[in-house]
């Protein structure tokens, strides 16, 4: 009885969800269209290129998948933290730490002639450890000194950035480039491509697996339950016998590990070297900020986050084509993205207020 009631309730929620986002999408498109017209562009041409450049060609689709991979992992990292009551603004730093871990492992094992099925996982593990460590610092500081993880993660972003700057310009620098970029990692540490001609690497599969893994971990394991309990009300969790400090020391490093994996995959699958700008260009919203948006819009739920990350991947990879199709200035593309986020939130909030 109750179970069937629950099923129909879930259906209702799903419909509600779909209606909200359909309405939000429509309004966002309308606002975006107004914006495009204001810049003297043709709306249909613009939207056509957004879709074509992100989904309509194999190359575009592959690049959207490549974008989806770090976005999803980074958003999972944020969602995981929020579920446990931690606000992780340090995704960028953790991505960099993961990229460093991957690159460092690849260089360290370079001479050993490892086959790729051994080398790639080892490299990714290096990245995961790098990110793990970058998450461990805020975790331990929060447990031992009650220092806000928001503060620490932001500070560590700056530190990680300079660390990459140091490595990419210093010990690992590729002298031919004349830029902040490392030598390429050995071929055997490069993640296999799933669409070699179109250029999609296998990272998105790993990211999807991580989403599924997180879903099961959160809902089907006692550790996941304890994390949710601590995130919901740490005091009550303590009264229920949960060791809050220990759980906290799982949460932040796990966030870091997920982001670190994102960074490692960016190196192993995409750039094949360490460079500044892995997590977004100067003066542009980077993965960290987008990951928080995605996590909240996806309600910190792995499924919701996966969908939201996919939509964002399309949006991000499609929208900068507006520069080329209708001559929007590069920065105006961010305005377009912001308008879409704000209209989605607008519709969602209006419905909730009324509902």
């Amino acid at each position: 009885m109750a179970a069937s009631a629950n099923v129909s309730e879930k259906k209702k929620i799903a419909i509600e969800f779909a209606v909200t986002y359909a309405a939000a999408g429509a309004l966002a498109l309308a606002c975006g269209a107004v914006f495009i017209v204001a810049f003297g562009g043709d709306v249909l041409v613009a939207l056509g290129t957004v879709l074509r450049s992100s989904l309509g060609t194999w190359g575009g689709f592959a690049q959207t998948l490549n974008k989806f991979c770090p976005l999803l992992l980074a958003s999972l990292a944020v969602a995981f933290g929020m579920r446990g009551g931690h606000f992780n603004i340090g995704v960028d730093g953790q991505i960099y730490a993961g990229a460093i871990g991957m690159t460092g492992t690849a260089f360290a094992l370079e001479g050993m002639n490892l086959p790729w099925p051994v080398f790639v996982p080892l490299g990714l593990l290096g990245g995961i450890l790098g990110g793990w460590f970058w998450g461990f610092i805020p975790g331990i500081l929060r447990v031992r000194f009650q220092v806000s993880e928001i503060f620490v993660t932001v500070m560590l972003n700056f530190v990680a950035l300079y660390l990459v700057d140091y490595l990419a310009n210093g010990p690992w620098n590729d002298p031919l480039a004349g830029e902040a970029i490392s030598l390429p990692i050995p071929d055997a540490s490069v993640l296999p491509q799933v669409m070699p001609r179109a250029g999609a690497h296998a990272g998105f599969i790993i990211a999807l697996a991580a989403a599924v893994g997180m879903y099961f971990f959160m809902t089907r394991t006692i550790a996941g339950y304890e994390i949710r309990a601590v995130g919901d009300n740490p005091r009550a969790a303590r009264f229920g016998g949960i060791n809050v400090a220990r759980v906290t020391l799982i949460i932040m490093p796990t966030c870091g590990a997920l982001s670190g994996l994102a960074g490692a995959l960016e190196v192993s699958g995409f750039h094949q070297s360490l460079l500044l700008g892995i997590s977004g260009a100067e003066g542009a919203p980077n993965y960290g900020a987008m990951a928080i948006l995605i996590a909240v819009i996806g309600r910190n739920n792995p499924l919701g986050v996966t969908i939201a990350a996919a939509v964002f991947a399309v949006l991000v990879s499609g929208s900068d084509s507006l520069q080329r199709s209708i001559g929007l200035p590069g920065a105006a593309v961010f305005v377009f993205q912001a308008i879409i986020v704000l209209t989605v939130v607008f519709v969602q909030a209006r419905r909730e207020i009324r509902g």
Partner: protein
Amino acid sequence: MTETAAARVEMHDVSKSFGQVRALDAVDFEAAKGEIHALLGENGAGKTTLMNILSGLYRMDAGRIAVDGREVDIGSPQDAIAVGVGMVHQHVELIGNFTALENILLGREGARWKLDVEARRSSVEELAANYGLSIPLDEQVKTLPAGIQQKVEILKALYHGADILILDEPTTMLTPHEVDGLFSILKSFAKGGLTVVFITHKIQEVLDNCDRITVFRGGRKIDTIPREEATREILVRMMMGERGMPPEGERPTGPSAAREGHPALSVRGVRTSAKRGVPLRDVAFDVPRGLIVGMAGISGNGQKELAEALAGLIEVEEGEVHIDGEDVSSLSVAGRIARGMSLLPQDRIEEGILPGLSLAENFVLGLHPHIFRRRGIFEREAVHEMGRNAIAEFNILARNEHVPAAHLSGGNIQKTIVARSVMLAHTTGGKVMIANNPTRGLDVMAASFVHGRLRELRAKGAGVLLISEDLDELCLMSDRIVVIYAGEILGAFDGPKYDIYRIGALMAGQKQGAGS
């Protein structure tokens, strides 16, 4: 008080729904100048909702309100204050890191540009002295015990010049002595021409102090009767309808019923640090198996610290805690739970529930290391089934086991944490139950149900430590009563019959009345 007395406040045909829930259904209510008017009803009957409408916190869906015969539109607390309505809320609405004085002055600071708390101090002190409400004005409110916080709320309402004063269950946190004090204050208000509306679950208070009584059931008004026509039986029948009186539980038998063997709980010379709240000073007592030991004391005398020290939540500096003969002093909370201890926390919202998690997931908090067959796996079906059973067994008003716990009413949240600790006791062998004010805010029926469950645990041989500020409840339930004062056990009394006055004297710290 007669029907012809001038109606100070009238509410007509007031309706209010929250989503699907119809909280009030065309209710009329009317209170006169100079009276103390009691509102009575089960948990969730709509009392708070009605008064929240009057005080501007909720907007009614339909209905009319008149003050002094003139229709008013109350759209915000500001409007309510303007017509003289002041309310002391069920859950205190204070600002934790402001001082008591700042809380009282807030919104009526008496200056435009420069805040001068000192200039107003004397008028607040005078007001406090007039009504016998002694409050440490310069303490941060969050450091004050709940009872004192409630007094701050009352003083705040008075300071804001309310002449229609609404109190929503103000006595749940007060000692009998303070309750008497409060009612004498309220009576003097009424004499001075104020209107007092008073919500409570304690029928005796109603009979002792109020002029008229309005009873609600399921969002409808049943009737308003003058005190002279009311008896306990009549009021309960009005509240419960055809369901009749709650069953009279068996009375305690006294310490003779204690079972053989180690005491269930043995507390030996426990001391805690002042950094953790009220320091405990050499607290020592036993809770034998098969007994309910009541702990009497005015709130804020170390009960909370003791409960937490026993559960392993705060560090014990000296002394030992034994469960069934085993020293558990160095064990974690989880370790003590595994050895049969079950704690029912005092603050259901802050310490009790996981508001965003489902009701079912709330029931298993603490049990979760013990109930699953496969290591590390959270078996959702089992959790849901437990949830369904608990909702039925403990009579919890909730749509199903999937709703977030936050959506439950206060009373039902209380039932949820009672259910959890009882289930925990059953799961882990149930050696010791520490119940901190388990029936706070529950209606008569629900309270009697909780009492039944505690007695059942006793019958099964568990030791129950019942901490309560309600002396009536303690006398009704305990085989033995120990009294705590300023972190120290001042005396112990064996039941089943108790001398309330001697206990009361000890609760106030007067040692000469020490008992057996």
